[in-house]
């Protein structure tokens, strides 16, 4: 699946897009897997610190994901 990062997250992780092949069932699974990539990933992808969207809709930790989904992680939004 395609994983995107935005704003501070994109900058701190120095990563805009990842392609993940692993079999994962939920946003929580994906988050846990990504957090293993290093200390910064551990810290900045913590629940509450990074929101998630699945296929361009805000998601919860339970939201299921499949290989064809686009998942995005980003900080709490600050537009307006």
């Amino acid at each position, binding site marked *: 699946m395609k994983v995107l990062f935005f*704003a501070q997250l994109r900058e701190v992780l120095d990563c805009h897009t990842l392609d993940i092949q692993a079999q994962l069932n939920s946003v929580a699974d994906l988050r846990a897997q990504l957090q293993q990539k290093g200390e910064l990933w551990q810290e900045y992808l913590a629940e509450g610190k990074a929101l998630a969207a699945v296929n361009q809709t805000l998601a919860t930790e339970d939201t299921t994901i499949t290989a064809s989904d686009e998942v995005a992680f980003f900080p709490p939004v600050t*537009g307006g």
Partner: protein
Amino acid sequence: MAQAHTDIDFIAVQREDFSLAVEYAKLCENNSRDGAVVTFTGLVRDLNQGRSVSSLTLEHYPAMTHKALQEIVQDARSRWQLGRIRVIHRVGRLQLNEQIVFVGVSACHRGDAFAACEFIMDYLKTRAPLWKKEQTDSGEHWVEAKQTDQHQARRW
């Protein structure tokens, strides 16, 4: 039924500036049903959380932003009796005093227009994938999300 309104809602995410006069005209023209028009405009102000701001850069999640705004607008339509709705959010680099965001709502009754306009702003502030980076006298940094915005969105 909310789906049917999609064609009369205007939602734009753009680099270009907008004109309040043009937006207001589009809310009013050939619309003798709605007696109330409420508009909100957000601008780049010089002080934010104590820092002196000279400009902003607005990043967004292009594939999602329009969709998120559309969902917020449809949510507003399900809660109040509304006429026309127009939402514009700018992205990219914005200087001090520039316009950032516009929400305009027409309705038969002013209570509906006020509530929907504020609701759309409160939801936009907590649900639309946009992020501000400030250029200030102490350097450049990402704006932190405010607790007060979360509280305001939870009222509805």
